[in-house]
């Protein structure tokens, strides 16, 4: 329940901080009050209609893939993503 879902900002936030994002293939308006620096093209973690944090594209892709594997509602139709190799921490290689 405390999960942020990755979304991509597709439209500049309006004066009230509401921005259009694409989230699991659906367009929605979310509040960017907590991430005032977010701009078009950024990926954010969205929870309950609010962007919580700006994240990297790579992390957004990994997180969506994870949700698909966990059978999170709304992710049924996501295609498996091609993911780059995870970086292996130096102490384990």
């Amino acid at each position, binding site marked *: 329940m405390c999960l*942020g879902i990755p979304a991509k900002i597709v439209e500049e936030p309006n004066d009230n901080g509401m921005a259009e994002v694409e989230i699991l293939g659906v367009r929605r308006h979310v509040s960017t009050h907590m*991430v005032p620096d977010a701009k078009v093209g950024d990926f954010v973690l969205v929870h309950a209609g609010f962007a919580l944090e700006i994240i990297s594209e790579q992390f957004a892709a990994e997180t969506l893939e994870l949700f698909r594997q966990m059978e999170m509602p709304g992710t049924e139709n996501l295609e498996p993503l091609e993911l780059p190799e995870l970086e292996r921490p130096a102490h384990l290689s």
Partner: protein
Amino acid sequence: MSSADILKGFRDPEHAAALVTAIAEAATEPQTFMEVCGTHTMAIAKNGLRGVMPENIKLLSGPGCPVCVTGNADIDMAIELARQPHVILTTFGDMMKVPGSYSSLSREKADGHDVRVVYSPLDSLTLAEGNPEKHVIFLGVGFETTAPTVALTIREAARRGLTNWSALSLHKTVPEALRALTNDPDVKITGFILPGHVSTIIGSEPYRFLAEEYGVAGVITGFEPVDVLQGIWMLAKQRAEGRAEIEIAYTRAVMPEGNEIAVRAIEEVFEPSDAEWRGLGVIPGTGLAIRPEFSQYDALVRVPVTPPEPRAIKGCQCGDVLRGAVLPFDCKLFGRGCTPEHPIGPCMVSSEGSCAAYYRYTDYGRA
């Protein structure tokens, strides 16, 4: 299934196997680690991580599901509000089926009361604007991830000058609940796998007392199975080296200071209050009551109701499951009378509840 088979299912099986070996090497003494996030509970159950742990490491599931830890008296309060003829009660979908003492919101809806599921608390403001003759209440349930969204919605209601909208704040904050768990004589926790997205908001500082006052280790970790393994390894390593610290393994989404705008929004709109946690009882300072300055948006002030005396759900051990004192399998009703299709207690209702996660992923076998 052998642990080698389990590890084959990982995106990077070699990395996972290396972590498991490293965990076994570090676990020279018995350790009890608890995860306190419903998504970690699901990740551990689904990937069979209990099955690859060395003997010395016991993994417990804690009170990580906000829906599950909401007490019956609070659910009864929400139900009583939904029964008022002039009220539209709006809620996240997860709360609909959760049983209170006598009913659930979905049962109330079936009985003709106006209960609606919204995706965001902001949607309930729009509903209030479209229904000026009604009073719209948003049921705020969740930890620090959700609390700022409701705080900002209350501020937005003020900005829009709404007079027919309020929130019932049943929000809870995590760190002091971990103190209560640490003090529980039945469960001797030596390390916490700390929640990812709660920590996105609050950062790592609020957990520091666990390490400094109690010598308990903590690692904030992500949700990939290898993330969880990495978190467990970091905990085991801290114990082996005699350290107790709060570390962040989830640097992709968590900064030590958290999100300061979100924390400020919580503090501006809410004040700490006592909150009742299922299984843990009343924990001082873990609730978030709406401050008097915002009382016109407080459902407790706007729509005063008196719910009936709460009662416990017969035979359900969800409370003991939530504090790690028993495993879901230990409940006599688990899988016999209580299933996700016919849930008896909240831990089976919520998809991230421990009973539901164990039922779904472990074939009844003890993992």
